């Protein structure tokens, strides 16, 4: 007996909100990046789940796309973190505020 779709949606939403809360409350950029990954994967989970429900492959394809983008995003994000650390000697996102208008 297959797992009902509502369970996937509940799990996906839960993971997503964990990611959102993580981005909003944590000050370590590495943790923030991990939280973003969590949100990506919540979205991926829902793509796959709904692809199974509607029996369409578009969801699978989107999941691959998201994984690709997530990889790129992680690479750029880590590069920014490293660069910031080099120039500011600090990676606390509340302390790095040189972009304030």
């Amino acid at each position, binding site marked *: 007996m297959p797992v009902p779709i509502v369970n996937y949606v509940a799990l996906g939403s839960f993971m997503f909100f964990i990611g959102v809360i993580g*981005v909003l409350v944590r*000050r370590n950029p590495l943790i923030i990046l991990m939280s973003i990954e969590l949100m990506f994967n919540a979205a991926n989970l829902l793509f796959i789940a709904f692809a199974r429900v509607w029996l369409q492959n578009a969801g699978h394809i989107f999941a691959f796309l998201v994984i690709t983008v997530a990889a790129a995003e992680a690479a750029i994000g880590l590069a920014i973190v490293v660069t910031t650390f080099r120039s500011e000697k600090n990676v606390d996102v509340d302390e*790095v*505020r*040189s972009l304030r*208008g």
Partner: protein
Amino acid sequence: MTYPLLLALWLAPLASAVICWAFGPQLRTRSGWLASGFVALSFALAVASWPAGTQSAGGALGAHQRLFSWGPGFDFGLLLDPLSLLWTYIITGVGFLIVFYSIGYMDGDRAFARFFAYMSFFVFAMLTLVLSDNFVGLLVGWGLVGLASYFLIGFWFDRPSAVAAARKAFVINVVGDVGVMFAIALIVANVHSIGFSDTFAGAATFSSGLLFAICLALFIGAAAKSAQVPLHTWLPDAMEGPTPVSALIHAATMVTAGVYLVARCAPLWSRNPEAQLLVGTIGGLTALLGAILGTAQWDIKRILAYSTMSQIGYMIMGVGVGAYEGGVAHFFTHAFFKAQLFLTSGLIIHALSDEQDIRRMGGLWKRMPFAFWAMLTGVLSICGFPGFSGFFSKDEVIYGALQHGHPWLYAVGILTAGITAYYMFRLLFITFLGEYRGEAGTPHGHAPAWIMNAPVAILVVPSVAIGAALMIGGDSSPWARFFAPLFAPQALLAPSPAATPPLSEGLTSVIVLICVAVGFAVAWYRYATPVAQADAVERLRSETAHMPPVLTNLFYVDAAIDLIFVQSAQFLGTISGRVVDPAVLDGAVREAAFSAGWLGAVVRSFQTGLVRAYALLLVAGAAGFIVYYALAGTAH
């Protein structure tokens, strides 16, 4: 009939202008001889063109030379008929004498060649004006003579007064150009052609309102060019130019362009009595006003300028009321005697080292007998002494006004003749009689060279005799027969005059002569009697002091124009500069800049640089969208 010789006649002065302008430094004084030669060549060609200009083969009067075409109705060409032939004779003939005279007058000027380039250019422009067979060509000439006049009035451009006078003349002339332009627009809209012949043929179908509008627009041009009230104020100021310029442009030729225009457009005016009344009245008013103002001047050239204005008023009155032959005749004789008067005044000014105030002259007949006799014949001619040229032409104009049913203009003409005699003899007496009132010591004036005397001597002949030679005999005179093919058809168009005039032409002459005699007597009594001579210096000074303010202020015309146009334009400019520009134009720009800054300040307050705050905004935005679509979804 094509007539290629016309091209040579027309372009010779242009060639002279180009050569004098391009090779001035090399030519130096030879440029004067060169310019005289080219203008004389033009005159010779004009004389040779007499048979071509007066013949009427195949129904078309005169010689015609096609130039080029812009399309149907827009043909450009040259036309030499009796009217343009007459003007060509004056422009090139009198023009030659004046250019020749200038060789002596401008001797030693540092811009000698430039002067002759301008003079030749003026002759070319004036020939363009009178030889053109269409309105656009006429307008081109019309504008170019204004430009030449601007150059020559402002010839001594290191004098601020000359520059101001040149600018004033140019601006007022352009007002006239715009008038002619409007007329051309009306003509093209109605006959789809710019040619004179097409226009005059089409004029029969014009409504009287349209005809009046065209005549009015043309007359604005004529009034500006010919110094008619109220656009006359530039002419006295134009005397800032060298004296030969005053003689050629501001007496003999350019200022009579308005007379030419009205005479040329006789088929338009003859069909519209209202336009005739308007032009005749303005002409009469100008004649009277110019004469009155002439009595109150002390500058020898300004007296002559007002007299020119007054005499052109006569011409305009003549052609305006329909006495075309009379008006043109007065142009013809006036060109001689006024050029002669100006050139004679140039002799005096030259001899007295640029002194122009007649109060500092006096007693000159002993030192300059030639100038005295030349001035005397000119004065007698302008006053209409019997037998002199002015006598015939002026009486023809005055009597023409009565013949065509304008008794008031007739009376004004007679009155003006009396005032003319007064101010001209006043000029003569103050300048030549009595004792010399200039600076003490020997005036370092030198006797004018033959090069300046000869043209004056030549001009004396026509200004004395040409009237008697051509204008005796009424309708069978050579003059009347010359113009009969051109103007006789116009007489049929105009409504026939009421009846036989109550006064005959002979009686008119007698009345005019009585007025002239009175004017002469008053001038004699005031300036020439031994009593008047005895304390002349004191008298002239007190006369200045007691002159009525209306005369010293020149009838407030300048002041009125200043108030209505100049001041109001300046007021508008001040309003624009002080209110409209800073508040509206600058204000809009400044407000745009300020609001961009304000918007930036608002948006900047979001840019905290705090990454987590951005994230919160993102989340809040996303949440907002979700809530919105969720609600929108439930609404359906």
